[in-house]
Structure formats: C-alpha cells, structure tokens
C-alpha cells in the first residue's frame, strides 16, 4: 500500500513539475505579446506538426498529381501537367464506365455514390431509432449503450475479418441456413449481395458512435416541452416531427457530415471483406486509388494523387453544401 502511495505522490509531483515548466515562459510571452496573439502560442505546436505531417504531404500530392512515370521520388518524375486529370475524366458516356478510358475509376465513382447514399441514409435511420429506444427508461441502459458502441473500437481490418469469417461459404451464417433446411448462399459472390453486405458491415462498425451523438442530442431537449405537448394531447408522430426532429437537427448535421466523409472514404473494411469483387462491384474510390498507386506492379502514383484530389474536391463541396444548407437552424452563432 505504501509503495502505491509513494508512486502516486511521485506521479503527482511529476505532474505538478510538468505543469510548472511552461509557466514562466508563458507569463513572459503573455507580457510581451499583443493581446490575441497568445492564441497562436497555444495553437502553435499542434499547428506545426499538422503543417509538416498533414498539410505538406497534401501539397506534395498536388505536385505528384501533375507528374507521370513510375519513380517514387518527386524529383525524378517527369511533369505531365493535367494529363492525369484528363485521362481520369475522359469518357464518352459518363453513365457507362465501359466507355471511359479509366473504366475502373468510373466504376468506383458510381459504386461509391450508390454506397454513400444507401449507407448514410440507413445508418442515420438505425442510429436514430437506437437513440430513441435508448432514451427511454430502460434497465441496463449503460450496458446496451456500451454494447452498441463496442464495434466502433475495432480496427477496420478486424471488423472485416470478423464478418468474412461469418459470411464465407463454410461460415456460421450458412451453417445456420443449412440447419434451418435452406440452401447455403454465396453471400459475397453475387454483385448485389456483396454490395449489400459492405453497406451492412460498415453500418455495424460505426453505428454506435452516431447513436451516442444523437442520444446526447435527445437528452438535451428539455422535458417541459414534451410535457407541454402531452398536455395538448399531441399524437406521438406529430411530437416527433414538430418537436423532436427540429431540436435534434444540430446533432443530425454532425452525423451527416461525419458520416458522409467516412462513407466516401470507405476502404479498409471493404478491401479485406471483398477485395473489390465480384468483378469490380464493390470497388470504391479509395480502393481504386490504392490499387493504382500501391498494389499494381507498375505504380502510377501521379494518377492516384490526381484521383485523390478529385475525390477531396467533391467531398469538400458536398460538406460545404451540407453546412450552408443547415446553418440557419443551428441556433448558436459560434459556428
């Protein structure tokens, strides 16, 4: 017991000492910097690391997207200007990937579009439903909340392995089917079926996080509003539509923005689960980028960089639209 106490005290002293380390330089800075500039000191370290390891690589990628060849060092690559972008966007018929020069890219675009629409919608619906249920007086609410959140903690590779193990031809799902007298199904072999399972697995893995956000939003709605509605004998559906949903909008916005970004960038889970198959039915955009830049034997890194920039551009536009579109109902002006 005394060892623990001494260790605790030692750690406490360490903490106090660490805390005091920047005290004096900061006071000096506080005295000497004009008001408002102090903010930069706090943001500084984070911003510096961010600039070097996130922003700078993106700038380098901008350079890569204008180069060709197969060398990895930017200095050894020939400049080709907008050739990569041109080849990515040249199609006779944008709706038919087969007519495009980069048909895999366009398969990926349409697959991703379908995936995003389906997955984000369904995830919102299920997260909302779960949040509504969890908001009631439930015994063991903490346990259920934790259970729904648990898959969020698993790495995407683990998530995919878990479901691959369940869905394979000799997996437990087919065993259940056989046990019930039905024929085993090739879950990941049909295009529609594989696509559906990628949607399911990604919802399974992330739903808990969004459920918690929506749950918090629900709990922030003051109870008196509901009591007032009860006194007016308003039907539950109207209460939901007129009261709950509008007040929940800020949380729904968070879910939509984050969910959309993640859905468009889906990669690891699907890659391990289906590898992009059958054919290219579940090849999404980031897998195309990965295949082009990393796993083909002739790496076309410039093309991959160009595709990522196109992807980021579209995503940025979509996010801005969402933010603008929802701004008036946000309520607090701190943005």
């Amino acid at each position: 017991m005394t060892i623990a106490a001494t260790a605790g005290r030692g750690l406490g002293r360490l903490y106090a000492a660490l805390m005091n380390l920047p005290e004096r330089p900061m006071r000096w800075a506080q005295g000497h910097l004009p008001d408002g500039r102090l903010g930069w000191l706090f943001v500084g370290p984070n911003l510096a690391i961010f600039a070097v390891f996130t922003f700078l690589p993106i700038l380098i990628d901008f350079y890569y997207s204008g180069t060709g060849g197969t060398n990895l060092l930017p200095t050894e690559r020939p400049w080709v200007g907008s050739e990569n972008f041109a080849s990515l966007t040249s199609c006779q018929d944008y709706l038919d990937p087969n007519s495009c020069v980069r048909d895999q890219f366009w398969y990926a675009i349409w697959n991703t579009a379908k995936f995003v629409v389906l997955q984000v919608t369904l995830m919102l619906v299920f997260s909302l439903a779960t949040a509504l249920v969890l908001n009631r007086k439930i015994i063991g609410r903490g346990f259920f909340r934790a259970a729904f959140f648990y898959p969020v903690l698993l790495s995407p590779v683990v998530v995919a392995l878990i479901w691959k193990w369940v869905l394979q031809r000799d997996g437990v799902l087919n065993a259940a089917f056989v046990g019930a007298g039905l024929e085993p199904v090739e879950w990941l072999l049909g295009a529609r079926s594989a696509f559906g399972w990628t949607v399911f697995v990604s919802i399974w893995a992330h739903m808990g996080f969004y459920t918690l956000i929506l749950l918090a939003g629900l709990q922030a709605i003051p109870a008196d509003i509901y009591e007032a509605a009860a006194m007016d004998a308003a039907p539950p559906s109207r209460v939901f539509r007129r009261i709950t949903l509008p007040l929940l909008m800020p949380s729904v916005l968070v879910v939509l923005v984050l969910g959309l970004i993640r859905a468009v960038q889906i990669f690891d889970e699907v890659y391990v689960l289906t590898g992009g198959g059958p054919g290219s039915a579940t090849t999404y955009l980031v897998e195309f980028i990965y295949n082009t830049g990393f796993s083909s034997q002739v790496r076309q890194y410039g093309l991959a960089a160009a595709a990522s920039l196109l992807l980021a551009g579209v995503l940025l536009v979509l996010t801005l639209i969402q933010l603008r579109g929802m701004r008036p109902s946000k309520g607090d002006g701190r943005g």
Partner: protein
Amino acid sequence: MARLARMMTATRGHGRMDWTDWASYLYLILGTALMLGPVLWLALSSLKSPAGLIEFPPTLLPQEQVRVSVPNYPNPLPLYRITKGDHAGQTLAEVRKIGLQATMVDPAAPETPIRVPVEDRTKLMQFHAAWDNYGDLLQKFDFGRYLWNSVFITSVATILTLLLNSMAAFALSKYKFAGREPVFLLMLATLMIPPTIILVPNYLIAAVLGLTDNPWGVIWPAVATPTGVFLLRQYMLTLPDDLLEAARMDNASEWRIYWRIVLPLSKPALAVLAIFSVMWRWNEFLWPMVVLGRNETFTLPLALNSFQGELTTQWNYLLAMTVVTLIPVTVIFALLQRHITQGIASAGVK
C-alpha cells in the same frame, strides 16, 4: 419493496409495460446479440485447430478428434465410431488408412486388425481448445518487445495528443484572434483527403527528418489529429467564460488558466479523445508498416502479421492474432466506458 417494483417496471409512465416497451427491449437485445455475437464467434473460432476450422458445418465449441494410447502401438491412435456395416456401434482406433479402406483395431483387443471402409465411420470428437494458436504466436517471436513498442507508442502518442490538441482547442475556443476560423477550417478540410495517399509523401518527409525506423516516426505525425481538436473545441465552447475572467482578475497566467481550470473541466471530452487515440494508435497498421523496417522497432499488429506470406493464409493464426489485438482496447473500453459515452454526448450536441 414497492420502490423496487416501481423501478423495475418504469415505463412510459403508465405503470405497466406496453407494447412499445416490449418492442424496445427486443430491439436492444437483438441489437446487442448482433453487435457482440460475431466478435464472440471470432474468439471461439480462434481456439480451433486448422482441421477444425475447415469443418462444415462448424461446431460451436472447438473440438478435436479423440486419441487413445493403444498397447503395441507407439503413438496415440485416433478414435472413430462405426456407423454402418459389420461393426456398427463399435468405437475403433485407426492404425492406417489407404485409399478407401482403413485398418482399425479395438483398443480393448489390439491384436486383431479389422478392415473398415472409410464411409462407414465418423470421427469421435471431444472438446479441445487449441491454445497452440496463441502459444505458437507468442513463441515465434519476441512478444514482450513488440508489446512494449506498442504500449510505448500508444501511451506517449496519447499523452502528446491530449496535450497538443487541448492547447489548440483552448485557443480556438477561448481566444479571438485573426486566423482562428481559417485554421480550424483548414484542419477540418484535411479530413477530406484519404490517408492512403499521404503515406508516401509522409515517408519522404520522415526520411528527411531522420524519423524512420524509430518509434518517434510513428508518434509525431499522428498527434495533431483534426478530429481531436474538433471534439475538444466543441466541448470547450460550452465552458462559461466567466470562470476564466474571474481567474484573470486574480492575476492568473493564461497557462495556469489552461492547466488548472479548463483542462480539469474538460475531462469527459479528454476521456473520449484518450480512448480514440489509444484505439487509433494501437490498431494502426499502414503507417508503421511504411516507416518501420527493423524487426526490433515493430509494433504488435505489425509483428503479428509477419507470418503472412505471399501464397498462404493460415486462418488459425490470423484469428488468434485478431483476438490478441482486440483485447487491450476491450479492456480499456470496459474501464472507461462511462466517461466515453458522457464525453461524446457533451461534445456532439453543439
């Protein structure tokens, strides 16, 4: 007693369970089974031997064929139950199998060999957990070292992440300075770029800075997370400014305000960021794979994958390794669970 009864039956307010309550519980129970079931199945499957893994239909519990020592034979012999033919109902041990005929003996009377066609028998199975799957992994390499590497990287990176992100979030939420909005938006905008395409330029930068083959090469690039800054900023926005004003009037330095007031009050959000950071760093695979080339610097997920060759996939090791990677995150989650759910709640509302 009456209070207990009231608590147990707390419902929408009618005092009885109506159909919506039943439906809610059913939904939650089914949902929990769906969320946790596959993980449990993975863990159970990881205890099966390679032969057990390819059996279809798969058995719930790991099983292995029973073997008995039979006098006159040096090694234990596998047991079978005979289902058809002359010896139906007997349990015999197999000595040898050639093509479609097996030579078997009765363990009680090992002198007389009996010929049995292979289709007339089924294996006799018993419960047996293949701890070897784990044992082999742990023995194959220096498990302790890789565990330490992962723990070191995860803890240091988490501490740095909490420190740097909270400082930045503090500034972005409590200070008004030109460039505040652009910095924040810039951080968010970089979330749009898929991480895959950042790997190569990041490696070139890390090589220039001398951070390759080094745990710091894994730590430094990862600590300035936009998500962390976003989460903490949203939370800190809810802290009342009067507290800070009062402290300023007492002549406290800004640093002290940060350490003594804002940080302790942000505990729920910090707990969330902590678990996320632990989860991200512990599970991280691609970046350590690029930046670490020497075995002694490997993190645990990387080392656990080293038996993956080009041409073969050994499912039993794959499953065991997946479970091993799962455990630390599960444990931390179980401990911090309440803080996390609280923290996400507070951060997500605004």
